[in-house]
């Protein structure tokens, strides 16, 4: 089928402002949105720039705004983006992040926030000879959160992040949840003060945009609510 592909282009080296370019391409409804971008880059305009790698929703490179929603380009098909012949698909970079070029954003702030929450297992008890035991029930608490691929779709869909660029945002807070609720972790005392802060959990107003944006369908709001309860309890105990 023939579709129009509208892409927000910007190369700060040569352009004063971003501009839209439209391409007409022949696509299969079962093609992914990433395949559409690749077709344009490979056969129409090699200067079109975006990140990509695994091509099937695992590496998290190609989060972008497609038809107004944050999605992974490789994980959404044309048939879900257009109704019929001649329809338009729009591509923009993830909102509110500085644009490096076309659909490529600068993720340095995003990863600074990730680093801020001490995103690693903190333990004090010396490790046993064998694995630390963890029951399937304990594992189930973190299973969903460990699916996160750090693509940034959630954080860049979050109105609190749009309003306050210093807010840690859902991706970093989810990482804090993933470690704090890991039965092997003993770092709540170090980690919770980071998230129980002005730029932390309390800027989450449970708007659910993160859940909707997450390409791995993680129930982010649920886990952030659990982290809020934990933070309140720990603060009360102190």
């Amino acid at each position, binding site marked *: 089928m023939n579709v129009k592909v509208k892409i927000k282009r910007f*190369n*700060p*080296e*040569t352009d004063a402002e971003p501009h839209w370019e439209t391409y007409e391409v022949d696509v299969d409804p*079962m093609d*992914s949105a990433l395949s559409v971008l690749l077709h344009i*880059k*490979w*056969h129409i*305009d*090699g*200067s079109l*720039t*975006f*990140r*990509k*790698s*695994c*091509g*099937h*929703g*695992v*590496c*998290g*490179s190609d989060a972008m705004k497609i038809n107004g929603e944050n999605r992974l380009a490789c*994980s959404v*098909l044309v048939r879900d983006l257009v109704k019929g012949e001649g329809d338009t698909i729009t591509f923009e970079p993830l909102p509110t992040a500085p644009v*490096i*070029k076309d659909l*490529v954003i600068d*993720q340095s702030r995003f990863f600074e926030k990730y*680093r801020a929450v*001490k*995103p*690693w*297992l903190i*333990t004090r008890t010396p*490790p046993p*000879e*064998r*694995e*630390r*035991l*963890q*029951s*399937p029930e*304990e*594992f189930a608490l*973190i*299973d969903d959160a*460990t*699916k*996160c*691929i*750090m693509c940034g779709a959630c954080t860049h869909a979050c109105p609190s992040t749009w309003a306050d660029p210093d807010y840690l945002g859902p991706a970093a807070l989810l990482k804090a949840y*993933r*470690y704090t609720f*890991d039965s*092997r*972790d003993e770092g709540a005392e170090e980690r919770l003060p980071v998230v129980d802060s002005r730029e932390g959990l309390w800027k989450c107003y449970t708007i659910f945009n993160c859940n909707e944006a997450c390409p791995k369908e993680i129930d982010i709001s649920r886990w952030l609510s659990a982290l809020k309860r934990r933070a309140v309890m720990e603060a009360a105990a102190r």
Partner: protein
Amino acid sequence: MIFSHDVVIVGAGGSGLMAALYAKEGGADVAVISKLHPLRSHTGAAQGGIGAALGNEEEDHWLWHAFDTVKGSDYLGDQDAIEIMCQDAPRTIIELEHYGVPFSRNKEGKIAQRRFGGHTRNFGEAPVRRTCHAADRTGHAILHTLYDQCVKNQVRFYDEFQALDLIMTPEGVCCGVVAYELLTGEIHVFHAKMVCLATGGYGRVYKTTSNAHASTGDGMAIVLRSGLPLEDMEFVQFHPTGLYRLGILVTEGARGEGGILINDRGERFMERYAPTVKDLAPRDLVSRAIYQEIREGRGINGKDYVYLDLRHVGREVIETKLPEIATFSRTYLGIDPVKEPIPVAPTCHYAMGGIPTNYDGQVERAGRGSIVPGLYAVGECACVSVHGANRLGSNSLVDLVVFGRRAGIHMAETLRKEGRKKEPLPDNPDRRVREMLEDILSRTQGEPVAVVRADLQQTMMDNVSVFRTEETLNTALEDLKQIRERAKRVVIRDKSKRFNTELMDAVELGFLVDLAEVITRSALNRTESRGAHSREDYPKRDDENWLKHTLIYREGEGEYRFDYKPVTITRFQPQERKY
């Protein structure tokens, strides 16, 4: 700019991060340069698991794991290295667990283990539960945890820096790499006491592959261009179950959890090819069986695919143990594996060959003991060789972590013991890279990269995949001759300095052409069938003449030289391989 570090690791997948972590913990100043952000590395796509004889589910021994690996390798794996891998595997998995890897658990709270192809108890009796996993996203769980640990340990990362050349002194000591910074278009020199390549595989040489776009074999090609050999390049693994037409991986864990392959008549055809282990036969065997069924007209509706049937496995197991592949199947094919079988066909998956190393990751110039000072290689780009002619499923992640760890420890210890100084940089270490990039940027007329690359991938798929003959291999070589000339003239439209991915596409095309040529030539040279290398004109394994590793050197453009290296045999004498 010139950056200076004790250890520079190129690539940030499982093996690169393991090497970084252990070298850093050993006191070295470590930098990791990666053409992608580390979390985008292809290790993250590894699904089914990581093999280690932990014995959490049933009796198991490292020696059984070693035997299976040797037999799986069709006796081409080096048994000293395999013994080390299988002995090191359990404690390395335990270390990963202590680092926080979120493994799936069994009822006792221990790391859960499942069956996988070619892994057996008591030297081939029956399948054994050996493969540790985090649902069907084991690589993702390991990659993210290792990155978290590297961040904690303040490993220095240079993200989106693409290594394009090695820096060697006239005496043949490696003292750094030249890298291109995507953001700025600047060419940088990394001056180091030790360089460790961890650049992964080259699946993008083939049209249908489970590999990421980034899997272009950069490290292997750079080594080849530096006059060093590559080992066993004829051995390319095709995974039996890629999603039809797309090549996206469907883990062997799907068969480990009970899935079966069926043909157009609804027959469980693996019973005929591997009566004992059936659908859990090694990948080379299953891929050949699928093609055989297709050739004999039993592909689904006479087409070039078969079905992977999970319906009897049940919704609960699919949703808890195989959720990712269920999603892929629904997203990309519109097929719900709970209700319908999944159309699958073999997909290029893994490079058994690569940069020859010893079991501490040190690169070898000409066989055992001939170390290239300052240069290490680990992971898929390296060839230790633990996989020989065919890798077993769940042995790739274990190779990454075991040998990444060993190389990291070895580098840190060597630095501590020898207190070695950096070799002075040769004059203009970045000259070759500058000339290469200037040449590409200066062209104004020619074909786009994608057109030439597609022809390369097509001829490799048609002529150098699961079955090979002298005729198909010569056809590929003829095609590659033309493709090489065309690749030298590709034109890019993006001439900007900023984030120029098209320029890197053109460079990577050059790497792919080099690798396609050494794969094809090595395949033509080996006149026997062994593991994944199946020559229809030489259908038998020939231990008398070919129980040896191939080394291929590039002597000049289009000129190659072969050499050989004996296989190390410790406990297991070659036998006929039956499953």
